[in-house]
């Protein structure tokens, strides 16, 4: 690792490298060829790979995903770029009833990547859904939620070499985040989390945009003498519960953090699973931090209130450690 890149650039580089070596990969979506997508995530690929493999699509999310499903069955590895994953609501049958089930029903691999932004930024309720938990609950789907450029590149490469439908979720607020990225063979496997910050007192399990916020919260706690270990799950399907367990066996405390609505989300799975498997180990209840159950508002102060912040996470870490250690 030596090169530095933004998340968007890392994604593009991972995709471009794989496209160079695997002619079966193609990518399409609205405004991709010239503009390179809403986040510049495929900028320049049009001129490198041509109109056959980098396609502008009409605003037809269902057709894009359906075409991806059929093309994957007939030998391609399509990347459907929805720009915003919010538009996947228009392709939900294609994702859930088709892509996710075809291997189970028909025994065929389904190497299809569906990329979009997930989570909350400006723009109001309809472009800022957080529904990674839906996909994680659906049998047959893989879900990537990278928080660093290196993971973004490594995960898109794994997705493009795999056989499964992958929902590849990037965050609007992380698109410009810079960091080191790996080389052509630095793949990040699905289902393997990583420790972003070691700590002995409490474990934070999170992914995506709340990884940096959790690290910031851990920084706050450090100054109070509490060392939090921050785990970035990187993919939420599969979910690396073993890594979380290994950590909690040492820290005996767990806070699960999601940007998405706390109620009924994948954070509940993590909390429920660990509350069960580490019942005898935990020194206190598993706490969860997540958004309240409201849509994303437009107004900035409302939005801030509806989104978990580093302060919210720090508060939960304090509650988890204070209440029980004594």
């Amino acid at each position, binding site marked *: 690792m030596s090169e530095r890149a933004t998340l968007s650039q890392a994604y593009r580089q991972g995709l471009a490298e794989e496209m160079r070596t695997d002619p079966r990969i193609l990518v399409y979506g609205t405004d991709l060829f010239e503009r390179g997508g809403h986040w510049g995530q495929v900028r320049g690929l049009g001129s490198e790979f041509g109109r056959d493999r980098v396609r502008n699509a009409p605003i037809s999310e269902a057709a894009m995903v359906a*075409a991806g499903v059929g093309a994957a069955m*007939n030998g*391609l590895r399509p990347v459907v770029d929805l720009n915003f994953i919010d538009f996947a609501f228009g392709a939900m049958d294609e994702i859930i009833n088709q892509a996710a089930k075809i291997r189970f029903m*028909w025994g*065929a691999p389904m190497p299809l990547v569906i990329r979009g932004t997930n989570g909350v930024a400006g723009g109001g309720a309809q472009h800022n859904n957080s529904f990674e938990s839906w996909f994680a609950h659906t049998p047959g789907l893989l879900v990537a939620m990278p928080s660093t450029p290196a993971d973004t590149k490594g995960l898109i490469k794994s997705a493009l070499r795999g056989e499964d439908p992958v929902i590849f979720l990037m965050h609007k607020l992380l698109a410009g985040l810079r960091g080191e990225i790996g080389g052509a063979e630095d793949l990040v496997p699905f289902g393997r989390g990583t420790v972003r910050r070691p700590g002995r007192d409490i474990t934070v399990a999170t992914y995506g945009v709340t990884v940096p916020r959790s690290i910031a919260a851990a920084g706050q706690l450090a100054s109070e003498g509490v060392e939090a270990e921050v785990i970035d799950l990187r993919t939420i399907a599969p*979910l690396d519960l073993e890594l979380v367990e290994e950590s909690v066996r040492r820290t005996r405390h767990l806070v699960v953090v999601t940007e998405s609505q706390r109620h009924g989300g994948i954070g509940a799975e993590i909390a429920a699973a660990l509350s069960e498997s580490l019942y005898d180990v935990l020194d206190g209840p598993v706490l969860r931090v997540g958004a309240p159950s409201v849509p994303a508002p437009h107004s900035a102060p409302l939005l801030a209130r509806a989104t978990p912040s580093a302060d919210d996470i720090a508060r939960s870490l304090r509650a988890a450690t204070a209440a029980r250690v004594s």
Partner: protein
Amino acid sequence: MSLTAGPDAEAASLQPIDLSGVDAEQAASWYRSMALIREFETTAEPLVMQGRIPGGMHSAVGQEATAVGVVGALAATDIVTGTHRSHHITLAKGLAPDLIMAELFGKATGPLGGRGGHMHLADLSKGHFGSNGIVGAGLGIALGAALAASVTKTGQVAVGFIGDGAANIGRVWEFVNLASIWTLPLVIVCENNLYAVETPFAQVTGGGDIAGRASGFGLPAFKVDGRDVAAVYRIAAAAVARARGGEGPTFIEALTYRHGGHDVGDRETYRTKDEVERWRAESDPVLRLRRSIADAALLRPAALEGIDAEVAAQVAAAVEFAESSPYPDPATVLDNVTGIDMKIRGNL
């Protein structure tokens, strides 16, 4: 099947079909394929009623000619997708009746080991990219298969079958549009059998002209008598040639009629017995072909009867095979959901 049950009163009204240019081999092949479908469907239906086949069934009796005419215009490597009503397409595409029957029974010997069943038949190795439980969805898969054929220049053509009901699924028009603007080797075949479950086509389809709708999306659109296998074949062959030649998709609306209910058990209160009888009498596609073959002396009566006997034996053997096949091991239900281990806990 009662095709050989002697002279019948309706025979007079049966509309002949034009078999000019059709040789004996072709005629025999069409007839065998259509008779097999008829026999398969009429045999399977009571098995559903008896509960020996679980999960219901949508019979394609009356619609044999669309499947046989269209698939007859395809190469083996070409691709088809179907709807919930797709036994005819499946048999026409060369899936063996005994294996299909086993799949309907939910047996391990089915091509999908019992996972798919009647509404989700498929065999990718044979270019059968799935019948589909969701109205309109199969066409989307055919679209994608055509995209892959176009990008990788395999020379394949994909055919997506839909029903008249699918004309009101918006996504269908997205699929048609994308094929149109990307000039994909796709043939869309709409089997308009005048009903979607109980709902008459005209009641819910603004404009009342599906091919007309299609032409608004920038591709050639035709109507054809879907109960005339030769007519279906001719128009399908032209569309397939066009697709294979890189000229893009074609939309074919095939007018047809289902003889039975929407699904097994349908009480059919929404149409009269008379209406059904008229369609049968005038345009039963199997009888029309059989009669026209005889009239044109393309095959001798004995040859036709021989085919009837053969398909009857084939389907009887299929039931036998299905009945005697083992069920899949329940534990295998957890296998092959994804290519990698999802590390799910607590799977029962």
